[in-house]
């Protein structure tokens, strides 16, 4: 029987007029995804979305590393909301799961403890001269893609189907802890039956893999990654997820949170280097995509214009399955179309089997 429990966790998602807040992690590791999101919304779907040059980081990584105090992050968040209102928008959308959790937490705290809102208003006025205006709606950018998934399907150039066999691709989805574990009602499907990415995958023709550690943390854990001495904790948690999903032979992983996408990609590299262990077919890694990249491929975007050359695990095996045409020569071109050299070959991409043997020995 198919689970439909996700339908109990619904939220109102605005259809148009979005104020876009960028993400520290996404713009560092997946700048092509941010650009693709703006293009999909603005150019392909004709939706009003504002990319404001004035907003800053929400400071969420500092907050969850316990160096930025609650009162400070609340005031930074209040400034972001004020910028949104000053630009004439009411629907705040965040490109980051950590930020999305922060925005929800701050709004909930102001509601539960009104004195904290009053204090924030005072700090904001004193520091910036601005007045706090709260948003009408808060959504994560994946909620927006989910909301428009049928419109994207109608413009699709590719489906999430193996073009050689006609079989649906098997997709592991990872929604990220702060999408729904802090405020389950703020995420589509809540924390137990997350549907935001699964809905996209199903609409675009793929099969969602349900595996034992689907809800487990990717391994970020803030200080457990940010401090070098603690990274064993981070890789151990990614390792647990990879071990759990591997028997289901996923064609790719798609992640909601830019941090999760980065960790599930990079820790596959580290595990291959340390242990000689890889989790994908033919001794390779499992490609890890952002949902913007997944939507972009469905819409026929060029993979290198999506920024997929910035992944550590090569995506070419997936592109071949999808029947996506791409130019291998264009992968490592710089801004002006010049070749800028390429990264060293590594075990996770398995171009040289002897190297795996050397690591194991």
């Amino acid at each position, binding site marked *: 029987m198919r689970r439909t429990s996700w339908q109990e966790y619904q939220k109102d998602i605005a259809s148009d007029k979005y104020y876009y807040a960028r993400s520290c992690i996404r713009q560092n590791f997946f*700048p092509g995804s941010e650009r693709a999101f703006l293009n999909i919304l603005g150019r392909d779907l004709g939706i009003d979305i504002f990319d404001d040059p004035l907003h800053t980081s929400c400071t969420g990584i500092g907050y969850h590393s*316990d160096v930025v105090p609650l009162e400070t992050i609340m005031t930074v968040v209040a400034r972001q909301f004020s910028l949104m209102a000053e630009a004439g928008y009411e629907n705040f959308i965040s490109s980051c799961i950590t930020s999305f959790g922060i925005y929800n937490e701050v709004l909930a705290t102001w509601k539960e403890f009104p004195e904290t809102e009053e204090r924030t208003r005072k700090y904001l006025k004193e520091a910036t001269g601005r007045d706090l205006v709260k948003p009408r709606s808060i959504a994560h950018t994946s909620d927006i893609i989910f909301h428009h998934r049928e419109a994207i399907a109608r413009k699709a150039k590719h489906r999430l189907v193996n073009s050689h066999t006609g079989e649906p691709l098997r997709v592991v989805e990872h929604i990220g802890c702060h999408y729904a574990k802090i405020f389950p009602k703020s995420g589509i499907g809540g924390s137990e039956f997350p549907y935001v990415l699964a809905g996209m995958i199903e609409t675009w023709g793929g099969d969602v893999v349900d595996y034992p550690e689907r809800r487990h943390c990717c391994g*970020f854990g803030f200080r457990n990654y940010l401090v070098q001495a603690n990274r064993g904790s981070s*890789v151990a948690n990614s390792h647990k997820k990879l071990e759990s999903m591997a028997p289901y032979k996923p064609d790719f992983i798609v992640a909601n949170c830019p941090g999760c996408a980065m960790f599930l990609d990079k820790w596959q*590299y580290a595990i291959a280097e340390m242990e000689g262990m890889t989790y994908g077919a033919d001794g390779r890694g499992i490609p890890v995509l952002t949902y913007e990249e997944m939507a972009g491929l469905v819409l026929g975007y060029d993979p290198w214009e999506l920024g997929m050359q*910035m992944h550590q695990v090569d995506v070419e095996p997936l592109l071949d399955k999808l029947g996506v045409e791409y130019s291998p020569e264009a992968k490592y071109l710089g801004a002006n179309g010049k070749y800028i050299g390429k990264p060293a070959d590594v075990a996770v991409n398995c171009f040289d089997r002897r190297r795996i043997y050397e690591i194991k020995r």
Partner: protein
Amino acid sequence: MGKYFDMLAEDVRLHEGLKACMNCGVCTAVCPAAEFYNYDPRQIVAIVQTRDDEEIERLLKGEAIWYCGECMSCRPRCPRGNTPGYVIQALRTLSQKLGFFVESEKGRQQLALKRLIGDNILATGYCLTPRNILPELHPEQGAVWEWIYENDEDVYGRFSDVYRREGAGALRRIDDASMREIHRIFEVSGGNDFFDTIEQHSDRKAREMGYDGATEEYMMQTYTYNSENHY
């Protein structure tokens, strides 16, 4: 009796995170940190709700409160609506305010976090930027990151017209007026004072440990040292 609990109770996250815990241990069962570390969030919450000053002081000076990754996996699963992760946040904040964090190996890492993340926010307006993800400190980032790092203008230039320049787009330079507002926010809301507290207590501890204050060398020691006594 209850001095530290009263101080913790000034933090709204304690009110939100701890009503009455029945010690069922579901939080520990789902906790990613508890799988890796010798860590039991159930026990932490149990100690806090005893309101015992001696026990809470031991927590504030100990390693255990620093193991949590703040993933908040505990929050939706608690049958009593508690959030041990919020309790941890309140404990960590108090531990730093009182200067107790420097008494533990994991607590001392707050200096590295303050300098790597906190100072970067004040310098750039972002928690992280490509130029501060140094490949030598991040070997796990792999060969592709090294390639990106060495060719950043070219790689990011393909996706952003404003890499390290003002305007709308990825990794834009944040304008001076916005940065002044961020600095003022940190000043009026206590962010700068909190940073200073971390620095001052770290400096005191560093001298105790034989360093010439909270130097770069001491900071790197907190960032890299692992006694392997945490499992």
